[in-house]
């Protein structure tokens, strides 16, 4: 295979697949966005209030929770995958939910993975809000509620950055969702790739399985889409960071 022919062929074919809106590739992209988007939404709804609680409410075990959050920011995806897998298999403690190898199982895994990340970044965004601003709110007769709202307003770009960081991590992650989702595509052949529409197959898990089948061009197409989405998320994150 001299002169990297296979690579050029792969890239050309990849663009073909993308431009012609290949249904297999589209369905995979859809599952990726749906799963990671939902996980990020749920994680943000937990993480942001949690970060505010950790910043403003004094309670026993607060430092322990912060340590837990910091540790959680570096959780290895495969471990989270394994954990959710053993919980959700029918033989496991949450087996009765009957959710293993479903998009919901993937959402749960990514939720666990990125909640600490969003919490951690939000925490530092809140910490970065200048003390005098908060004091001013109190001086003007503001209550706790006003302080929280003011802080949220002041830290908004940091909070958005946190959410986008979580989304980026979720989209790029493969270890956890491969284990709990099973990389399932439905039976059938769409768009000439020999696979049916995606059920729990995402851009990242599909790259692993297509590469192992030796289908480099499909993998490259998936990779290009993944990078494009990831780039978009990061450009957005960068935009908000500059605003901050």
């Amino acid at each position: 295979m001299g002169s990297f022919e296979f690579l050029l062929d792969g890239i050309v074919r990849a663009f073909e697949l993308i431009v012609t809106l290949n249904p297999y590739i589209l369905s995979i992209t859809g599952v990726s966005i749906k799963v990671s988007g939902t996980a990020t939404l749920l994680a943000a709804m937990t993480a942001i209030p949690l970060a505010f609680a950790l910043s403003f409410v004094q309670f026993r075990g607060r430092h322990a929770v912060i340590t837990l959050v910091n540790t959680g920011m570096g959780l290895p995806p495969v471990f989270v995958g394994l954990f959710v897998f053993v919980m959700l298999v029918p033989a496991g403690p949450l087996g009765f939910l009957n959710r293993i190898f479903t998009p919901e199982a993937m959402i749960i895994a990514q939720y666990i993975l990125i909640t600490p990340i969003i919490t951690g970044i939000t925490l530092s965004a809140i910490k970065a809000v200048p003390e005098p601003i908060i004091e001013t709110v109190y001086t003007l007769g503001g209550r706790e509620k006003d302080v929280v709202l003011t802080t949220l307003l002041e830290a908004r770009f940091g909070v958005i950055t946190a959410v986008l960081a979580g989304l980026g991590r979720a989209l790029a992650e493969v270890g956890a969702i491969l284990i709990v989702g099973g990389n399932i595509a439905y039976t059938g052949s769409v768009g000439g790739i020999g696979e049916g529409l995606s059920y729990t197959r995402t851009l990242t898990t599909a790259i692993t399985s297509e590469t192992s089948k030796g289908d480099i061009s499909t993998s490259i197409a998936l990779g290009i889409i993944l990078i494009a989405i990831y780039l978009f998320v990061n450009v957005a994150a960068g935009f908000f960071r500059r605003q901050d």
Partner: protein
Amino acid sequence: MKRFYIIVILILISLISGCLDSTPDNATEELRISTTSSTCDTGILDLLNKEFENANNAKILTVCQGTGKAIATGEMGAADVVFVHAPASELTAVEKGSFINRTYVMYNYFVIIGPGNDPAGIRATENAPEALGMIAGKEQPFISRGDDSGTHNKEKAIWMAANITPSGTWYQSVGKGMGDTIMTADIREAYTLSDRGTYLAMKDKTKLVILFETDKEYLFNPYHVMAVNPEKFPDVKYDMSMKYINFLTSTEVQAIIRDYGKDKFDEPLFTPALI
């Protein structure tokens, strides 16, 4: 503040339960198959599943893994039926009561593939243990699946028959599926054991060639299907699993298996067990 959290928690709960409720296609019944990479990568399973879906108003969800993991998945109740190729592990799992109705579907033979110039000289050997013995003796690179799959189990059995415990830098375990293993062996110009079907399906993507295949005793590769025991996991779709097992062993499907691959690879990938 308290009310705020209550509201957030309520929203969370409703969202999560909303997610959980969104089970697709209630009209058709889903059957979860846990299977080995060779049935997936060769494309035969997809063809058979399509036939089954059309005939039974079913939707099949296939998880492709190595046989070891495929059996483990079934043993934990996360599949309804498993379709695998490691007789010893299958029988152990059946004895444990994890599976019932183990049924013989098809077979083919493993092949030893490697670089065309065959530096270990295995072409001239008489049987598989002798062939692997030559590779070990000359310390030629050998890539092992290392994933407790059917192929990996077979490889270990051949080493044992050859009375060799492979070790050293020439013996590398990758812990991956068949396709990945062939790709790795291709890059390293190494030997590896492959099922015939996956090798043929990937033939145009690798320069490795079949160097040894005549050993009917050691390279035999039978595939069995078995249903997850409903007494262990009452939620499994046992009736559907039995339909699937009967389907795989029906004359029509056995004929499809007999012919699969003839047009694409000039030779069939599997031999049906029953016709």
